[in-house]
């Protein structure tokens, strides 16, 4: 999901009545067009063409091509427009992550290729199944023209849901796999939490919010219905941003007059859904005369993160709902108390207004009417992806510690799933090894020995970085944290470290030893040299 200006999104709410209902016509192509290539004076050959479904692709190859190709997969894009706010992209937008490392990768001798996953062909939005096939066709196209020694399949965000099933379906098409800020690959777990956010706000702040329960209508009508829900949240955040959430809760009736400030409900909502308590400008630690305590800093971080997180929930959720149908969200069995990590209730106790307020807020959530989904749609959400996580290809994940769109816990979940497969293989190997009596049996057992071929790298924020004005207000318009925040937002050095690790992994078939990885990590400020680091888990795991 590309970054959306909050101001523009707020403007979108006002413009909603003017929205056109015209559908975008898509005319799929029957044949792939042959690439058209030109060579620039710097020796870089650029090729363009279209896949069989009419989607464009872009290839660039440097004069000193070393034989390794990187195949880039971008994340989700908007399916429908909002006049003046959202333009549905057309054509290839980026050849490499945010186009940041393109020049450096070409200088390093890598061939680059990507395809336009949104403009045409198949279902847009959460069109992972189509894009698996589009990626295969792209690689076939590249291989038909160039001699490719090694191939790296990599991508960002939604692409986690594309390249994981891709490499399992077409294992010979990738020598290494890179997932940047990616979902695990199912977005289902993340969506459940983001839908919770809507629901919790409907209890505490605006009973008219329907959130994910309003999603599921296909086409523009559904898109606008989802946008309207998003607009309600934006209105809330705007108000809370103006008064710092100071007024006491008005909803539900049980909490009116309790003295629990709205900001405590906001903080609780963020913590319950697993939203990072650090943001672009708020470090979750430092204080000032206005930001009196660390948990207040974290509350402002939640406020700063909330808009784009809920935008993901809105437009990602609406896109997914076109696959599942309405009613994919169900919270009838949600235990709100268990969603609050004891560490969070302790650490942010003051911001949450103490144990009494925490119990009161969770108590009314537990008693509030629940959202009952459609079992069939819920089942589809949980079955969005059928990946086995059993690829033997090296996989290197890269995440920001405080990614507000795709939480870093996604990477941890990927590692866990891959580790579970590895553990099964390890047990089989150990059983065979221990029962082997002959040299032949021992040799056969040795062949079963697995290798854990996943590495997860995280970009971290500095310890503290909030800048305060002379009055003690946090400066939310200044330079953000230089590392660890944002979505698909990494420095060139961080991206190139990841790229080099992926290239090496493609060559060797292994992610590299910790010592080897450190060679590159240490050259990229902000990357965590602690390879055993684990971010907070996602709130839902299945």
């Amino acid at each position, binding site marked *: 999901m590309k970054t959306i200006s909050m101001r523009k999104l707020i403007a979108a709410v006002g413009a909603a009545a003017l929205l056109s209902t015209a559908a975008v016509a898509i005319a799929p192509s029957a044949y792939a067009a042959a690439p058209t290539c030109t060579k620039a004076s710097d020796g870089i050959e650029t090729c363009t063409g279209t896949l069989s479904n009419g989607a464009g692709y872009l290839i660039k190859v440097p004069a000193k091509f070393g034989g390794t190709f990187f195949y880039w997969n971008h994340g989700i894009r908007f399916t429908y427009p909002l006049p003046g706010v959202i333009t549905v992209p057309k054509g290839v937008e980026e050849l490499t992550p945010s186009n940041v490392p393109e020049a450096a990768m070409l200088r390093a001798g890598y061939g680059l290729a990507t395809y336009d996953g949104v403009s045409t062909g198949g279902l847009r939005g959460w069109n992972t199944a189509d894009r698996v096939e589009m990626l295969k066709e792209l690689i076939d196209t590249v291989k038909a023209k160039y001699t490719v020694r090694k191939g790296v399949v990599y991508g960002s965000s939604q692409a986690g849901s594309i390249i994981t099933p891709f490499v399992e379906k077409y294992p010979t098409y990738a020598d290494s796999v890179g997932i940047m800020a990616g979902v695990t690959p199912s977005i289902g777990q993340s969506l459940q939490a983001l839908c919770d956010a809507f629901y919790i706000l409907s209890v505490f702040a605006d009973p008219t919010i329907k959130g994910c329960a309003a999603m599921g209508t296909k086409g523009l009508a559904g898109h606008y219905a989802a946008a309207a829900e998003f607009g309600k949240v934006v209105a809330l955040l705007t108000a809370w941003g103006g008064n710092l959430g100071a007024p006491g809760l008005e909803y539900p009736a049980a909490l009116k007059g309790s003295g629990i400030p709205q900001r405590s409900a906001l903080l609780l909502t963020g913590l319950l859904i697993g939203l990072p308590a650090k943001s672009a400008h708020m470090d979750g630690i430092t204080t000032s005369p206005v930001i009196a305590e660390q948990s207040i800093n974290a509350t402002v971080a939640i406020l700063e993160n909330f808009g784009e997180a809920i935008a993901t929930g809105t437009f990602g959720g609406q896109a997914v709902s076109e696959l599942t149908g309405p009613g994919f969200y169900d919270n009838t069995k949600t235990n709100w108390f268990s969603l609050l990590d*004891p560490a969070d209730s302790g650490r942010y106790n003051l911001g949450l207004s103490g144990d009494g307020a925490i119990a009161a807020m969770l108590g009314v959530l537990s008693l509030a009417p629940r959202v009952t989904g459609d079992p069939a749609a819920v089942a589809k959400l949980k079955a969005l992806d059928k990946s086995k996580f059993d690829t033997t290809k090296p996989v290197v994940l890269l995440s920001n510690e405080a990614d507000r769109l795709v939480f870093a816990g996604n990477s941890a979940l990927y590692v866990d799933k891959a580790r579970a497969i590895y553990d099964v293989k390890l047990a089989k190997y150990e059983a065979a090894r221990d029962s082997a009596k002959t040299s032949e049996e021992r040799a056969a057992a040795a062949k079963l020995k697995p290798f854990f071929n996943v590495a997860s790298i995280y970009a971290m924020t500095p310890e503290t970085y909030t800048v305060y004005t002379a009055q003690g207000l946090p400066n939310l318009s200044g330079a953000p944290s230089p590392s660890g925040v944002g979505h698909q937002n990494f420095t060139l050095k961080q991206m190139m470290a990841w790229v080099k690790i992926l290239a090496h992994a493609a060559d060797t078939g292994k992610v590299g030893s*910790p010592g080897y990885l450190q060679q590159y990590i240490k050259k990229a400020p902000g990357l965590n040299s602690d390879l055993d680091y684990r971010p907070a888990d996602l709130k839902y795991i299945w």
Partner: protein
Amino acid sequence: MNIRASLSRKKLIGLTAVLIAGSMTLAEIPANAADPGVSATEIVLGMQLPETGAASPGYNKVDDAMRAYFDYVNSKGGIGGKKIRLEVKDDTYKAGLTISTASSLINKEKVFAFIGSIGTQTHISVIKDINRRKIPDVFVNSGFSDFYNPATYPTTFAALGTYVTEAKIMGKYLKEKYPDKKIGILYQSDDFGRNALEGFAKAGLTFEAKKTSADFIAGTQGSVGLASQLTQLKANGVEIVIIAAVSSATAVTLLTASALGYKPDKWAVISVGSDATTFQTIAGSKGIPASMSAAMLTGLISASHAPAPGDSADEYVTAFKKINDDFNKGADKRWDNNVMQGMNIGYMATGALKGTLNPNSTFSAKNNKTCQANAKKATLTRVCFIDYIETNGSKIESAAFTALQYSATTHEAFSGFWIGAYDAATVLQPVSGTRVVYTTDSGNGPVTVSNYKRPAIAADALPKN
């Protein structure tokens, strides 16, 4: 860039060594391989506490006392020839810094174990990760009972009795001593306060919300103050006020009550909130002379699991005080409860390390063979260190009046407390003239008089594990 071509031969050899080492999985690491933080000459331990900031007074002396005891041990040759080095990080009692400083202790300082970390709200932010990494997290300075369930946190061990245990013992005493008095409570509405309430309830002492029970959000005692809570207790005729809060809140409470003219018959304070020097330091910062703050403390009831620092007749106090005089290089080495606690943790840690490296020690059946073999080779591992503490809790010596109760089912520390009252010299004295140690558990077990006989401290003040 071609990595191989860009590396010199020397670097390549080094890199190869790293690669070989790095490619080993955990299962392949020899059982007798030493863990991080241990070398032939040194054991590195890590600690987190508020060295600075509002929560630091008093607590910021514990690390200096621990280091003083370790320096004393080092002056006697260390443990198995290894010197103990204590690396300390200041988290200013902000959990965000607790997380980053824990990472630094793990990844940069390469500590063998965390020891003596201070603060419930801060430690709760890192305890899960420390345990996930299987790093020993020993002698934690928090009485929060949830930390010490080995099923949840297998590497974490307490340095205090739990708040539940202490509240049960204090509650029983107050209920029996003052049957006709109206007893109320002021508590911080977090894990600490909730744990204490649970203990008092188990002792049959319950309170009425908004009448005899007043709470506040931890951290607001300095900014918002506690006047409304004390006004409520006063208005409801509370004659004995229990305080279940940190020392800074106790100070604000007593000072505010004085300003309000509220003079309950007794104040009774859970021990972590009643340290005299901490109270007097905070009072001093508000312009209250020492003589006046001492007078405010006089008669205040509290509890302790160990001898009062002013108990000059106690052999542990005498021994630790001398070590403090000789080895403490801290900015404030004045002998008090914080220093005593730091010394005792140093003493317990030394015993646990010695025991782990003693070939005659017994470990759990699962690890006994490996750990005894390690001990013979003077190889210190995290697994064996944890195993030793868990298996030999009652053998780890300490100044406390009950034994450490570590086992496979609990990592709670001390089960016993004695009840005292501060005298005019700010020394906690037994309420009945003679110290009676009561013991119980964090569950529903009864409160009984302890018959534990504390082992004598050796002449050299070194544990004999």
